[in-house]
């Protein structure tokens, strides 16, 4: 099973999302990282 490549920086992810024309999924959590 491929791991999800989670980003940590929302603004950097938005730049990436714009470049790829993809939506973002933000996961706000309290679980151990």
């Amino acid at each position, binding site marked *: 099973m*491929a791991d*999800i490549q*989670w*980003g*940590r920086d929302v603004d950097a992810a938005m730049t990436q*999302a714009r470049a790829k024309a993809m*939506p973002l*999924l*933000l996961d706000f959590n*309290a679980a151990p990282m």
Partner: protein
Amino acid sequence: MYPNAEVSEFISGHFIPVKVHVKEQPATFKRFGAQWTPTLVVLDPDGTERYRFEGYLPAPEFLAQLEFGLAKRAFAHEQWAEAERSFRMIVQRYPESDAAPESLYWAGVAKYKGGDHGALKETAALFKRQYPDSAWAKKASVWAG
């Protein structure tokens, strides 16, 4: 944290995923108004929020919510055919999910907005057979004519 392969593949294939920890990034919680964990938020690339849901869900319900977020996004962009297809797929794939009756409702609205003026009445008729006790069936009942 996402031990389900289908969930992992779906997220990787459809989103730019970002994890935000309550202790490490409290300012980001505040920025997006997240008040509980877990909170999942679907955003357009420009940061416009399209959907959010809170609380733990088992994999099928979680997948249905992610699909619903994409369907709502297509709807917001007035991509009526894509939105209808996505909403109907949720009903088909996750018929027992909480997202299914709401998806059936919005599929009808998307079809109507796409130019099919019989779609609302058709949807009201569908609700007589599917999810007749749901809140969404009540909302669609006004379309029965």
